[in-house]
């Protein structure tokens, strides 16, 4: 008899089969869950459904929600999220229309905190329950932060637990997306601080490698220093998080700060840098390519 798996026999809905959706589908089916899926690209969905005995493809988002314990939504924009949840069109009803009273809808994408909160309100008015639980690349197999009520989290917990090593209740709805946004704001500014530090070192006649080696075990050491620092030293800007993604994340963070009524000068300056790189057609390079602009600005001012 094969060893029992944590999600044997449980049914979960999944909307969106991009990179995030596929990774989530793989982890959940590995744990034995039965998936009901829908994605815009019907051919892709059909191929997946044929290939996997635990995956059933549904004709519209509504049907994904009908026979499942909850629906996870992994789409790539706030607009797409609104469509797949609320769409009233005859040929494509949204998830909300199939979700039973007290049913769960979980935003696992990278939605703006204000958007996820406003969708949560609309869903609540229909007697359904919303959670936000962004499953980013680092959250997959790492820590997933959830916004919503404790009881709703308890219900979705076994599924999220299969996706991350830690599943933390961050606070009321919107908290998961807010944490993700704060994390991205911090990360962006760490990359900028690192680029400036490397530029300062170079201007002082210090090799990048010497600086990185010296700081590896210091208070500023860590994943950003070792990964982005290495990339900056080697001018290796393929793969990983792109400038385009970071520009969008920085804008989400600025919007969050604006709606919270606080002014963050470091963040504003940092966001300007990503926008400059984006305008300079560096959008598809890794965020570590900020070093180019910062190193150039030094030469420019000489």
């Amino acid at each position: 008899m094969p060893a029992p798996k944590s999600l044997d026999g449980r049914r979960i809905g999944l909307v969106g089969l991009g990179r995030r959706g596929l990774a989530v589908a793989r982890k959940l089916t590995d744990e034995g869950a039965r998936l009901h899926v829908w994605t815009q690209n019907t051919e892709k969905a059909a191929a997946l459904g044929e290939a996997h005995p635990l995956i059933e493809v549904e004709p519209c988002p509504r049907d994904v929600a009908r026979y499942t314990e909850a629906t996870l939504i992994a789409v790539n924009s706030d607009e797409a999220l609104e469509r797949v949840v609320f769409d009233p069109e005859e040929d494509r009803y949204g998830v909300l229309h199939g979700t039973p009273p007290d049913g769960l809808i979980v935003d696992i994408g990278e939605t703006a905190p204000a958007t996820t909160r406003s969708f949560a309100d609309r869903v609540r008015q229909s007697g359904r329950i919303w959670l936000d639980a962004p499953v980013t690349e680092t959250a997959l197999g790492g820590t997933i932060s959830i916004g919503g009520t404790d009881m709703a989290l308890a219900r979705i917990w076994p599924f999220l637990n299969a996706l991350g090593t830690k599943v933390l209740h961050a606070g009321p709805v919107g908290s998961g997306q807010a944490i993700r946004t704060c994390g991205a704001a911090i990360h962006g500014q760490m990359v900028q601080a690192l680029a400036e530090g490397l530029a300062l070192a170079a201007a002082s006649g210090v090799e990048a490698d010497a600086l990185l080696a010296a700081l590896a075990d210091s208070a500023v050491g860590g994943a950003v220093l070792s990964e982005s620092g290495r990339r900056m030293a080697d001018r290796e800007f393929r793969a990983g998080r792109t400038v385009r993604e970071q520009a969008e994340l920085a804008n989400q963070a600025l919007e969050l700060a604006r709606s919270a009524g606080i002014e963050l000068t470091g963040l504003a300056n940092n966001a300007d840098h990503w926008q400059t790189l984006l305008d300079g057609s560096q959008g598809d390079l890794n965020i570590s390519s900020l070093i180019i602009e910062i190193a150039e600005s030094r030469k420019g001012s000489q």
Partner: protein
Amino acid sequence: MTTIDAVLFDVGNVLIEWDPRHLYRSIFLTKDGSADEERVNWFLTEVCTMDWHVQHDLGRSPEEQVAVLIPQHPEHAALIQAFYERFQEMIPGAIAPMVAAKRQMKEAGTRIYGLTNFGVETFDDTRRRFDFLNDFEDVVVSGAERMKKPDPAIFQLCINRFGITPERTLFIDDSAANIASAKALGFETHLFDGPDACLQKCRALALI
């Protein structure tokens, strides 16, 4: 009065709420959609009883637990499976004032330990959900030791393993039987009946 330098916490209903009713109230519904308390009570006294669940606290895995019980009530197989599959729904949340007090004591330098009647698998899951269950100096879980409170032996195990002195350790638990066992071994004790009285006791002992 002796100074207290360590606190030994029970987990369920001291740091987190736990009650199987929370889960079965969402399963057994009356026609108007509210919880059917009568059927909830029947199920928890006739099918998934505490005498049965205690075997999990004594080390039996959820799979074995379910495999033992389903043949006795095959018509309720799905409801029995839900007991461990949806275990987290029995825990509506943390008892926030106690979590805050625990953190405050730890920060003040008091050594904080745990002693819980909990199954190994379900405790692992619960720790992943509640991060404050990961910062005990050490924790004894009944399921791993195959004995449980109020057996004096499990208290003795804590004394030996943690190197604590009962007279200088405050034990907090919501079960009178557990408190009696601990008291007989010399522990300072508090029978938990809500955060207010407990925090008052902690203040009186200068722990917070």
